[in-house]
């Protein structure tokens, strides 16, 4: 899209943040332009072209904008700036550094640099003169919050190159030249540590994208145990308002075994982002002992921030994720909520008077969502090293109805489904993931099964399926009891029901606000599951149905005390001992 002269234009129409611009030269779909309003420059993106008219969505309020205002097109798409210093930053949806903005209120037309240009980085060369390199290959690395941040051949460079020179180990700013590479024709390119990439295009600087096979530990039992997600996997969490989507995502982002965590607060509450600002600097990353903020990037485009920038924000987050994946890191990306992103698409599509699909969403919603989810994944880079982006999005179904377009489209794209149930949330059974409806397709992958049997236990898979079976049969028993009455069914129905309650209370339910219970390593999950399954295998003596409930309540109570105790501690063992004694009392 290189042009000699910048295309310009002038505003002819304004409908909220949709602006019609008459142009005097070539424009590209999704090209960025700036509209002059007094001494402010409003950034906008081309979303449709009809004859001489470019329809642009403005990333700002258009209040006061008049027809005739000057527009200048930039010759590039919406891009992010990639380089060392992105970790721990708080960006808006267009990658403006929010901390660099002055004042309490956001100012229209204020754009800030995502990087720190003055900071000196300890650079170590990784390539040497004579090496043959292509886009994404590592030339050197700097230490970013103790993470090896690779400086790569820019993704935009096509074809292959020879390294002519790499600067020696030392301190450099991101704009210092660190390498010279030469193409086939002998043309030289001087490189610094910064590159740009258009957010709506996937970075494909990798050799291979196999099916994901490694478990991504989240410490959340009803995910890891029942429906695990993999490194490089995709999942989504739909649920009516207030059922715990955000709490669950925050828990995962605190605990998961990832090198980099990207949180995209997309059209949700500002106070929830503030919670992260307050909590993460205090919390330790259990693996590195450093603070959680150091591995985290926050993209905050909350519900009151401009809608078009909300649409961009998830792409900004994903592109940053792809950048870090290319360094051979394990990236975990969360978006809360992808429904708000879909709504941003809907608002714009309505203003464009496009033919609407179901619920007035754009016709191609499903394709857009699939395309986005497909950017996640486990890859082998050109040097053979693995990297991954695991993506988990929340969905906020209108009216809590899972048959609506965003949920349905996402179901086609994501491999794990963590459906939150209103009934479970109402009865405070958190996390409210419905154990019957939810699924992880990864459990069916032979490579995942093999990984689990090797790394968790050799009977893990059958244990998990058995637990699911008990939950299912417990639900059936409960339905019978409700229909026929406590006395109307054999005592064995009560026992079956309470055995499923045991799994529910001990494995599924987990207190996100308790330090110990909140995070359960997979070893501990394995221990607890087999302990619980042992109990479900026992047969007990009961004289009447009331005895079943009160006995199982005691068992559950002791198990829960174990959940609240440090694994293997004296306290833990004491409760375990009490449990054994209790079980002996009634065993047949």
């Amino acid at each position, binding site marked *: 899209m290189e042009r000699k002269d910048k295309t310009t234009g002038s505003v002819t129409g304004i409908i909220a943040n949709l602006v019609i611009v008459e142009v005097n030269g070539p424009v590209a779909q999704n090209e960025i332009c700036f509209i002059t309003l007094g001494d402010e420059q409003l950034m906008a993106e081309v979303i449709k072209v009809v004859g001489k008219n470019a329809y642009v969505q403005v990333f700002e309020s258009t*209040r*006061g904008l008049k027809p*005739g205002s000057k527009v200048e097109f930039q010759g590039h798409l919406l891009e992010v700036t990639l380089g060392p210093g992105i970790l721990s930053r708080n960006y808006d949806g267009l990658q403006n550094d929010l901390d660099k903005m002055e004042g309490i209120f956001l100012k*229209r037309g204020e754009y800030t640099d995502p990087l720190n240009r003055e900071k000196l980085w300890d650079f170590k060369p990784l390539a040497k003169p004579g090496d043959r390199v292509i886009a994404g290959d590592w030339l050197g690395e700097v230490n970013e919050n103790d993470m090896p941040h690779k400086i790569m051949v820019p993704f935009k460079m096509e074809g292959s190159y020879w390294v002519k020179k790499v600067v020696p180990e030392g301190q450099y700013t991101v704009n210092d030249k660190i390498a010279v590479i030469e193409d086939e024709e002998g043309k030289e390119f001087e490189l610094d540590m910064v590159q740009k990439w258009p957010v709506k295009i996937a970075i494909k600087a990798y050799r291979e994208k196999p099916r994901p096979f490694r478990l991504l530990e989240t410490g959340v039992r009803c995910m890891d145990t029942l429906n695990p997600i993999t490194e490089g996997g995709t999942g989504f969490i739909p649920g009516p308002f207030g059922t715990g989507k955000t709490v669950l995502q925050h828990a995962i982002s605190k605990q998961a075994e990832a090198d980099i965590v990207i949180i995209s607060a997309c059209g949700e509450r*500002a106070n929830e982002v503030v919670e992260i600002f307050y909590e993460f600097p205090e919390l330790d990353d259990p693996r590195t002992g450093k603070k959680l903020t150091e591995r985290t990037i926050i993209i905050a485009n909350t519900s009151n921030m401009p809608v078009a920038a909300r649409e961009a924000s998830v792409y900004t987050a994903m592109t940053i994720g792809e950048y870090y994946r290319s360094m051979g890191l394990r990236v975990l990306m969360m978006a809360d909520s992808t429904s708000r992103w879909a709504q941003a698409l*809907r608002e714009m599509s309505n203003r464009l008077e496009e033919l609407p699909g179901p619920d007035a969403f754009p016709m191609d919603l499903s394709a857009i969502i699939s395309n986005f989810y497909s950017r996640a994944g486990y890859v082998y880079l050109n040097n053979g090293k693995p990297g991954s982006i695991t993506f988990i999005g929340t969905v906020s179904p209108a009216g809590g109805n899972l048959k609506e377009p965003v949920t349905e489209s996402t179901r086609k794209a994501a491999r794990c489904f963590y459906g939150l149930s209103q009934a479970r949330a109402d009865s405070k059974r958190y996390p409210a993931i419905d154990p019957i409806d939810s699924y992880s397709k990864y459990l069916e992958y032979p490579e995942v099964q093999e990984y689990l049997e090797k790394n968790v236990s050799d009977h893990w898979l059958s244990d998990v399926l058995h637990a699911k079976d008990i939950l299912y049969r417990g639900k059936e028993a409960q339905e019978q009891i409700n229909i026929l009455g406590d006395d109307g069914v054999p005592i064995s129905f009560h026992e079956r029901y309470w055995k499923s309650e045991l799994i529910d209370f001990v494995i599924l339910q987990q207190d996100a606000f308790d330090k110990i219970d909140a995070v359960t390593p997979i070893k501990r999950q394995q221990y607890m599951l087999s302990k619980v399954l042992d109990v479900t295998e026992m047969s007990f003596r009961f004289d009447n149905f009331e005895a079943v409930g009160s006995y199982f309540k005691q068992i559950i109570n002791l198990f829960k005390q174990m959940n609240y105790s440090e694994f293997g501690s004296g306290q833990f063992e004491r409760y375990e001992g009490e449990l054994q004694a209790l079980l002996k009392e009634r065993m047949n």
Partner: protein
Amino acid sequence: METQSFQKIYTRLTNITKATVTLKADNVGYDEIAIVDGRMAQVVKIIGRDVTLQVFSGTEGIPTNAEVSFAGRPPQLKVSDELAGRFFNAYGEPIDGGPEVNGETRNIGSPSVNPVRRRQPSNLIATGIAGIDLNNSLVTGQKIPFFADPDQPYNQVMALVALRAKADKIILGGMGLSNDDYLYFKNVFDNAGALDRIISFVNTTDNPPVERLLVPDMALTAAEYFAVDKNEAVLVLLTDMTLYADALSIVSNRMDQIPSKDSMPGSLYSDLARIYEKAVQFPTGGSITIIAVTTLSGGDITHAIPDNTGYITEGQLFLRRDSEIGKVIVDPFRSLSRLKQLVIGKQTREDHPQVMNAAIRLFADSVNARTKLENGFDLTDYDERTLEFAREYSLKLLAIDVNVDTDTMLDISWELFGKFFSKAEVAIRENLVQKFWKN
């Protein structure tokens, strides 16, 4: 209305709908206000020279040769301490017979707070109502609506909350308020001797519905003045947001926009979020807390208005008539304050979280017992006790006429636990039981 700054006068309307007019005009800015036939209007669409205006009071009787003049600015409000104690209409004009307010002119609908400048909401708001303070504690900087059926006393409860909430200023944004309710608010505030802390922007049922669209922005512009410039704790009451959303749908339908669910505009979520997200704890100490009312039709919370609201606000409060005690209670199951975690057990007594959960769990058991009873099954002894507990819990704690401090609420809960249950049935952490159990 001031007229001196008005530029050119146009007299040819090309289109008139129930809520909008269109004319050819030059040099007009988006969002700008105009006067059409003496009525306030705002620019909502510009295509070439065709400018479409939304006329707030409706277009009845507007002729095609009506005079139109543009003000060259968005809607504004004059802010100063003189606002205190005054009553205004949706345009910010006094309706209490008092003088015009002098002060700095501000555009309404100001930009958002930079999220990194926000502080975490952290100050408990005590209301004396146990259904709120005990089970759903409110915090400054929070936004929360009452979800209520139209026949429930939500405005009364809201007035009560406002007066007890030790706010520096209370700003009432009334939308489609009945004249009786308007006078009720006025009286209650007057009798409480609180008028000098109150500012009201009111659109009553007598006023045209589209005018309501200005009310939240007017109220919040005033709120930002006191919270930012004066570092005050400001409480904003918005009633009824359902009528606000109805007005949004009137305008979007008139503009031929494609409706989404329940005939609401596709932008409903963003439109409501823009208002509710004005709730904030500022770094300089001031705060804006929003308590709103969203009336339901037939208790249906899946309707687009309550549904979108629930996705935006930090919880919701349900009122319900408890037929057992014949009083209105704050429903402990469906109500939720999402920010309560920030204060309970920290700014309140240590046993608060556990007592709250235990009581609600026991109350839930009573509901199961009642279902059994109604289905003709026998009740166990435990069932009987939960029913007795529920009755007293409703009467002494959940009813909205309760007015005690939080420690007393906790003490009452322990008394009820001791009266009806064993320690094992209450299942609260042992160290708390040792400290607080009452026989």
